[in-house]
């Protein structure tokens, strides 16, 4: 009803530009918040520990267990399945040319360059990105963030940095696990179903892989980790209005981080493809 009244009072143009202006300001405010989030995170990760303001090492390790170690079973399960699928699908195509042995190349390269980092990032975004948003959001709703501030603690140092550090360290580690398990998945299909022979397949895999495949994959997963962490934290801090707000922002954090992961993936893959 308030909207209707302002429309009647001010006319269409003013309402339109008013809306535009408000949305624009809101957008700028959010950009400013993200800018600060990034800047403060960098400060509390790299500058503050050096000048003696400390880093919360203990809770960083706790977070590493939560986002990393606890994610190993699901990462292994999914990566192994991806390896199986990849091997079967590529064998299906390569059979036509009598080149089934190149399944090894396809699985190894696809897993290390693309699917390992991507699938791991998506799993972690679903597991931990949402968890981060929900945790910070619930804390915000319960005045816990303000309690932290009122005790003279910096929320970025306390909440954001341990999570970002844990993600940045553990996501590449998980990706390495995923790479190996994925290749092992391809292996099991090749050896037990395609009769390619263990030694032959292994040899082919080693020939196919170059150092660059692994490195580009790991660089990407590092970037994905930061995106997942920042998105989760941002969504957490944006929570307003109780449990419903937490739910909405948690969902958004997963959707947005997967979107950003794919976007960054496209960017870095093209970068590595054309420039390296």
């Amino acid at each position, binding site marked *: 009803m308030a909207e209707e009244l302002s429309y009647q009072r001010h006319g269409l143009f003013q309402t339109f530009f008013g809306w535009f202006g408000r949305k624009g300001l809101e957008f700028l405010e959010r950009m400013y918040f993200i800018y600060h989030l990034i800047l403060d995170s960098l400060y509390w990760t790299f500058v503050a520990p050096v000048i003696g303001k400390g880093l919360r090492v203990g809770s960083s390790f706790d977070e590493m267990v939560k986002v990393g170690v606890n994610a190993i079973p699901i990462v292994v399960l999914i990566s192994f399945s991806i390896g199986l699928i990849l091997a079967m699908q590529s064998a299906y195509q390569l059979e036509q040319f009598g080149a089934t042995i190149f399944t090894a190349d396809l699985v190894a390269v696809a897993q290390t360059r693309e699917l390992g980092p991507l699938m791991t990032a998506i799993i972690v975004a679903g597991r931990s990105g949402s968890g981060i948003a929900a945790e910070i959001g619930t804390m915000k709703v319960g005045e816990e963030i303000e309690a932290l*501030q009122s005790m003279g603690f910096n929320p970025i140092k306390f909440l954001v940095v341990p999570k970002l550090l844990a993600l940045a360290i553990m996501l590449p580690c998980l990706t390495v696990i995923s790479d190996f398990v994925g290749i092992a998945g391809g292996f099991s299909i090749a050896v037990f179903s395609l009769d390619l022979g263990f030694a032959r397949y292994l040899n082919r895999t080693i020939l196919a892989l170059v150092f660059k495949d692994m490195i580009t994959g790991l660089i990407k997963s590092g970037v994905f980790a930061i995106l997942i962490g920042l998105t989760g934290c941002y969504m957490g801090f944006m929570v307003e209005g109780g449990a419903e707000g937490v739910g909405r922002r948690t969902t958004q954090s997963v959707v947005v981080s997967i979107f950003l992961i794919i976007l960054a993936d496209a960017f870095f893959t093209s970068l590595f493809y054309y420039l390296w």
Partner: protein
Amino acid sequence: MDSGQKTENIIRVENLAVAYGDRIVLDDVNLQVRRGETMVIVGGSGCGKSTLLRHMIGLHRPESGRIYIKGRDITSLDEEKLSEILRKVGVVFQSSALFNSISVGDNVALPLREHTRLEESTIQIMTKIKLDMVGLSGYEEYMPSELSGGMRKRAAFARAISMDPEILYCDEPSAGLDPIVAAGLDQLILKLKKALKMTIVVVTHEMASMYTIADRVIMLHGGKVIFSGTLEEFKNCSHERVRQFIERRPEEYGEDEIGRYARALTSNSF
């Protein structure tokens, strides 16, 4: 510092103004809190009292005006200096705001662990003493979610006093609690004040609670201070809003206002 200086203003708010967009929340608020007294800030919902408290803790920076704690202007301090001052300030939030992921004992010990270099054994003892003071001895290992609302409030008091603050802020201490528990908290505030010689600022709209704990009262209405004085003066104040508040009279709506509202409703729906 100097015990002879009984009338020193430990908190001073000068010309504080806050607005969210077009809505003015606080308008030229001035107040002083003397060392060692209990100041109660009262007012109806939405009068800006919580906003005032948030600014007095330094959670928000005001658009204009100054807030001094122990003579230092907290509106112009950088984060580090502010953090130093806040170590001597305890806050009990409306929703208790205990950290739900750690135990009650860890909640109380957290400020000590982060801000001091005390031995862990000393911290354990201090935590126990603080919990004893609020009547929660033996609850160190409990998680906040396992406590009742009143006990959570008490735990929040224990955490707020863990650094032996000079100033204690309480936001609606009795909100959402039954009268018996709320009265217990009032007694707790009195006891803590006596034991720790703190300056206490309480935001509330509970008249009973105010009568029990207040030395001086400030009343806010529409973002302005409409009354400031002792409890006695408050009881005898003739200001219309103050009387309405004390006598619990509802807002009076004019006949024509209701009629206009009804007409607006009916004309819109057809």
